C-alpha cells in the first residue's frame, strides 16, 4: 500500500514551490552591497611558457580596481589534491602543484592567467583585453599514450614524466590472473574508449567572496556540493584562513553531478581578493568558461580481457586502462580510476581472479575528476560490453550467460577487496524481463524490419558502491578526508524541528525526503520539520553530497541524532507522567505509559525541555538538541538490470531509443517519486554519453566542443519515457534505514545497454560489427556498417 506520509510516501517536494515561482536563491542571485566583478583572462593555448604579463595598461582602464597575476599569490598555497594514490611499486603518485593563477607556464586552454577586478563585469572584460601577454607556445600533449612516449613534452617540467601513477589492483593477483587467461578455454578481448564528458549542470559555477573587516571574517558563497569540504581545503591549504573566520555558503545549487564537489581556483581567488581589496568580489562563469574550467569526466582508454572455461564460467578478468588526469590533479581525481573503478570490476559476477592496471596520465587538457558515477560507469561499461561480446562469440544468450555467472550468495567477498552485503541479481533480471516486455521483442523487431529499420535489444547489469566508507579504511587507501556525515536535530520549544545536515541538496530533494524519516520516527507531521543545509555557519561539519551518499550516510546520522532525541524526550515524559522510563512508549507523536491511558503530547514534552519548571533538572539538562556523526562500516551496493531497445536506420546510421527499462535494487526507499526521478535523470545522462556527448580536443589541445553548439546535450526529443522499477529491494544490512543510494545508478547502468542494443541491431542486419566507441553518432554507426 502506498503511504501518504513518512518513509515510503511519494511526498511532493516542498522546495518546488520556490523553484517554480522564481523565488529560488542561487549563488548568482546573491549580490553583496558594493561588490566588484572579476573576469579571468584564460589561456588560449594548451601549453606555453609565460615570458611576461604586462598589466600596466589594463590597470589604468576605467573602473578597474586591481589586476592580479600568479605573482600576487606568492606564499599562498596551491589547490590541494584530496587523495593520494600509491602505485604498483609502493611509491606515491606524482603530485604537481596547482596554482590559483598560472605561474611560469600555462597548461591547458582555459588555465587562468590573470584576474581583472573592476566595478562592472564589462569593465573587467574590456580591461582584460589590454593585458599584454608574452607566452611562448610549447608542443602540447593530448593523446595519453603519446604523452607517455620517451621524449614527449612534459606538462610539468619538474616531474620525471607525464605519468601520474601506474596502479595495479590487486597486485598479488597478477600472476594468477595471467596464468588463468593463458589457460582459458575462451578469452574475449575488447578495446574501448570511455568518452570524455562535461558534466554540464545547467547552473554555471559562481563564486562571491565577501570580507568583513569588523571581525576579520570571510564569507564565500559558492555553487558547491559540499561547503565544509571547501572551507577545509581553501581555509587550511590554500589561503590559511582559520576555519572559525571562514564561512562557506552553498545556497540553492542548480545541479552538480560531481563537478561541483571540487575546490576551484575561482573560489579561492574571490575569497583572497575580497580580503585584499576589502570589497566583495563576484564571479559568474559563462557557459563557454564552464567548458574550459569545470572538471571534465570519464576519458578512459581500456583493454579488457575476459577468460571463460569450457562451461562458460568466468574465470578471470584482466584490464589495462589509461586514465586522463588533465593538466592538474583536481580534488579527487586520483581516486576515480582506482578505488572507485578497480573495486567495482567484479560487477555482478563471481569471477574468482581479477587484475586491474591503471596508468593515470597528465595531458594539456582541463583536469578530469568525478562525474556522476565516477569510475563505476567506466567499470560497468567495459565489463558489460565484454560480457556481451563474449556471448556473441560463444553463440550463447547474453542474459543466460550473465545469470550463469551471477553472484548468488551474500555477503560476498570479491577478489577486488570489497564485500557486497546483500543483493539479488536474479530478481532484478526477472523483473527487467517483465517490465521491458522481452517476450514481445521479436514482434517489435518484425515491425521495424517491415519499415526497413533494424531493431536491437541491449541488456546489462550493474553494481554500484555508494556512501564511500569507512573513514579509517579510505584513509589507508589515500583519502585525505573523513567520509562520515553529521546531523543536528534541534527540537524547538513548541515542538517544531530544525535538522541541520551535512548533506547538500542540489536537486535531490532532501528538504522533502529527510523530514519523512524524522516524522516517521517521531510520529509527527512532516511539515513540522525543516532541513537546514548548505551553510557552514549553521550546520555541523559534514561532508556534503556526492557518490549517492546523502541518505545512506547523512540520513543515518540524522536517525542516530533523532534516536538520542527520543531517548531524552522519553526521560522527560517519564518525569511528567510519573512513570518509569522503561514503560514510556512513543507513538503518533504521543508519549504514553504502557498498559495505561496516561499520555503526554509531543509538544508538552518539548515545552518542558525549554521551560523546565516541572523537570528532572538534577538528572538531565534542559533543552532538546542532539548531534550525531555517522561513519558507515561499509559501502552500500545498489544493483540492477537495464534494457534498451533501439531502432536503427541502416541508410543513415541514426539510432532512436524506442524503449528503456530499468529494474533497480536500492534497498529501502524513502520517497519513491524522488528515487524514480533520480533514475530518469541518470538514464538521460547515460543516453547522452552513449549517443550524443563527446568532449573533443584537437592535436594542438584546442577544445573543439566548447559550447552547446558543438557539445550535444540530450534534449527531450532524444529520449523516450523510461520504465523504472525498484520493487526488488534487499535492504542494506549495515545502516539503520536499510537504504543504498540511487543517484548514480541510471548513469552507470545505461550506456552499455544502449551500445549493446545498437550492436545487436547492426548484427541483426547481417553485419559482423562487434564494437563502436561512444558516442554512437549516425556517422560512426553508418561508417562501421560499411566496413
Amino acid at each position: 500500500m502506498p503511504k501518504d506520509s513518512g518513509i515510503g510516501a511519494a511526498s511532493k517536494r516542498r522546495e518546488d514551490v520556490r523553484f517554480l515561482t522564481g523565488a529560488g536563491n542561487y549563488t548568482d542571485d546573491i549580490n553583496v552591497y558594493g561588490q566588484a566583478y572579476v573576469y579571468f583572462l584564460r589561456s588560449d593555448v594548451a601549453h606555453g611558457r609565460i615570458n611576461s604579463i604586462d598589466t600596466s595598461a589594463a590597470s589604468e582602464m576605467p573602473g578597474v580596481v586591481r589586476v592580479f597575476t600568479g605573482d600576487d599569490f606568492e606564499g599562498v598555497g596551491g589547490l590541494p589534491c584530496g587523495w593520494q594514490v600509491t602505485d604498483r611499486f609502493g611509491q606515491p603518485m606524482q603530485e604537481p602543484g596547482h596554482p590559483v593563477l598560472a605561474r611560469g607556464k600555462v597548461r591547458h586552454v582555459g588555465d587562468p592567467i590573470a584576474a581583472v577586478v573592476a566595478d562592472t563585469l564589462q569593465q573587467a572584460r574590456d580591461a582584460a583585453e589590454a593585458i599584454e601577454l608574452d607566452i611562448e607556445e610549447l608542443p602540447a600533449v593530448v593523446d595519453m599514450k603519446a604523452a607517455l612516449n620517451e621524449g614527449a613534452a612534459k606538462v610539468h617540467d619538474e616531474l620525471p614524466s607525464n605519468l601520474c601513477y601506474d596502479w595495479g589492483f590487486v597486485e598479488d593477483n597478477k600472476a594468477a590472473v595471467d596464468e588463468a587467461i593463458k589457460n582459458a578455454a575462451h578469452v574475449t578481448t575488447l578495446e574501448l574508449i570511455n568518452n570524455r564528458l562535461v558534466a554540464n549542470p545547467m547552473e554555471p559555477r559562481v563564486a562571491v567572496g565577501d570580507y568583513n573587516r569588523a571581525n576579520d571574517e570571510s564569507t564565500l558563497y559558492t555553487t558547491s556540493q559540499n561547503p565544509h569540504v571547501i572551507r577545509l581545503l581553501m581555509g587550511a591549504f590554500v589561503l590559511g584562513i582559520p576555519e572559525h573566520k571562514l564561512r562557506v555558503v552553498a545556497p540553492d545549487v542548480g545541479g552538480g553531478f560531481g563537478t561541483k564537489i571540487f575546490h576551484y581556483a575561482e573560489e579561492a581567488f574571490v575569497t583572497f581578493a575580497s580580503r585584499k581589496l576589502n570589497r566583495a568580489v563576484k564571479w559568474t562563469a559563462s557557459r563557454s568558461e564552464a567548458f574550459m574550467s569545470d572538471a571534465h569526466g570519464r576519458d578512459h582508454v581500456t583493454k579488457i580481457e575476459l577468460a571463460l572455461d569450457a562451461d562458460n564460467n568466468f574465470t578471470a578478468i584482466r584490464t589495462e586502462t589509461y586514465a586522463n588526469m588533465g593538466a592538474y590533479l583536481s580534488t579527487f581525481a586520483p581516486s576515480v580510476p582506482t578505488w572507485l573503478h578497480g573495486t567495482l570490476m567484479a560487477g555482478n559476477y563471481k569471477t574468482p581472479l581479477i587484475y586491474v592496471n591503471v596508468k593515470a596520465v597528465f595531458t594539456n587538457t582541463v583536469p578530469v575528476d568525478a562525474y556522476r558515477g565516477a569510475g563505476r560507469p567506466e567499470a560497468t561499461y567495459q565489463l558489460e560490453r565484454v560480457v556481451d561480446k563474449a556471448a556473441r562469440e560463444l553463440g550463447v544468450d547474453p542474459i543466460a550467460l550473465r545469470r550463469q555467472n551471477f553472484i548468488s550468495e551474500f555477503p560476498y567477498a570479491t577478489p577486488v577487496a570489497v564485500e557486497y552485503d546483500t543483493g539479488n541479481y536474479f530478481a532484478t533480471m526477472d523483473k527487467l524481463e517483465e517490465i521491458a516486455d522481452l517476450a514481445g521483442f521479436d514482434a517489435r523487431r518484425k515491425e521495424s524490419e517491415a519499415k526497413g529499420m533494424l531493431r536491437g535489444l541491449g541488456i546489462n547489469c550493474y553494481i554500484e558502491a555508494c556512501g564511500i566508507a569507512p573513514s579509517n579504511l579510505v584513509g589507508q587507501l589515500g583519502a585525505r578526508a573523513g567520509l562520515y556525515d553529521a546531523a543536528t536535530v534541534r527540537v524547538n520549544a513548541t515542538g517544531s524541528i530544525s535538522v541541520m545536515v551535512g548533506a547538500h541538496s542540489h536537486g535531490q530533494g532532501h528538504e522533502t525526503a529527510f523530514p519523512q524519516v524524522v516524522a516517521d520516527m517521531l510520529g509527527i507531521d512532516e511539515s513540522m520539520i525543516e532541513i537546514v543545509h548548505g551553510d557552514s555557519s549553521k550546520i555541523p561539519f559534514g561532508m556534503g553530497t556526492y557518490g549517492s551518499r546523502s541518505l545512506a550516510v547523512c540520513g543515518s546520522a540524522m536517525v542516530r541524532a533523532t534516536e538520542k532525541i527520543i531517548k531524552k524526550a522519553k526521560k522527560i515524559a517519564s518525569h511528567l507522567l510519573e512513570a518509569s522510563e522503561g514503560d514510556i512508549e512513543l507513538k503518533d507523536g504521543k508519549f504514553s505509559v504502557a498498559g495505561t491511558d496516561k499520555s503526554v503530547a509531543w509538544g508538552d514534552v518539548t515545552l518542558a525541555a525549554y521551560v523546565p519548571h516541572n523537570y528532572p533538572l538534577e538528572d538531565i539538562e534542559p533543552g532538546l538538541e542532539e548531534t550525531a556523526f555517522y561513519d558507515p562500516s561499509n559501502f552500500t551496493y545498489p544493483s540492477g538490470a537495464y534494457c534498451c531497445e533501439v531502432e536503427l536506420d541502416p541508410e543513415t546510421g541514426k539510432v532512436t531509443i524506442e524503449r528503456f527499462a530499468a529494474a533497480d535494487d536500492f534497498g529501502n526507499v524513502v520517497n519513491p517519486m524522488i528515487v524514480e526521478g533520480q533514475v530518469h535523470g541518470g538514464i538521460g545522462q547515460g543516453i547522452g554519453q552513449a549517443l550524443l556527448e563527446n568532449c573533443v580536443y584537437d592535436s594542438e589541445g584546442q577544445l573543439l566542443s566548447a559550447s552547446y553548439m558543438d557539445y550535444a546535450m540530450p534534449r527531450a526529443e532524444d529520449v523516450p519515457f523510461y520504465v523504472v522499477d525498484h520493487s526488488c529491494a534487499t535492504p542494506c544490512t549495515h545502516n539503520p534505514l536499510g537504504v543504498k543510494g540511487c543517484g548514480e545508478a541510471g548513469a552507470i547502468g545505461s550506456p552499455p545497454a544502449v551500445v549493446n542494443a545498437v550492436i545487436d541491431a547492426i548484427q541483426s542486419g547481417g553485419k559482423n560489427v562487434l564494437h563502436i566507441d561512444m558516442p554512437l553518432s549516425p556517422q560512426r554507426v553508418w561508417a562501421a556498417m560499411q566496413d
Partner: protein
Amino acid sequence: MAKVSMTVNGRAVSGDVAGNRLLVEFLREDLRMTGTHVGCDTSQCGACVVHVNGKAVKSCTMLAHEAEGATITTIEGIASPDGTMSRVQQAFQDHHGLQCGFCTPGMVMTATKLLEQNPTPTEAEVRHALEGNICRCTGYHNIVKAILAASGQDVSKIAAE
C-alpha cells in the same frame, strides 16, 4: 545609456541601460528579478525564456532596448497574485518535473506558451516544443509527463512504474 520602459508582470518599469544590455541582464540585475536564469551564452539552453508581447522569447537573445514598450511576463508573474500556482506550475510539482530547479523557469514559460497555442499536444509535440530547453536533471520524463497532465490528458498509463 538610454532610458527604456516596459511592463513586467503588469508593473510599469524603466531604467537606464547601455546599448548592449541584454533583456535578461536588465531583468536579473537592474530589476533584481532573479527567477529568470542564464544557462549558456549561445542561445541554446532556454533557462532564460520569458514572454514578450505574447511570444516565448529567450531573453538572452534580445537587447533590453528592443523591449521598449513591450509587455513582458516572467516566471515571477505566472502564479496568481494570491500565490496559487498555475496549472503548469502545479503539474510540475505534482509530477516531479523539476529537480535542481535551474531550467524550471524556462521550462514553465515554454510549456505555458505551448499549451496556449496547442491545448492538447501529443507527447511528440511536447518533446518538439522543448527543443530549445535543456534540462540536465530529469531526463525529461517527468517534464513531458507534467506538461501532458497540465493539458488535462490522462498520464497515469505513461511508462507505468
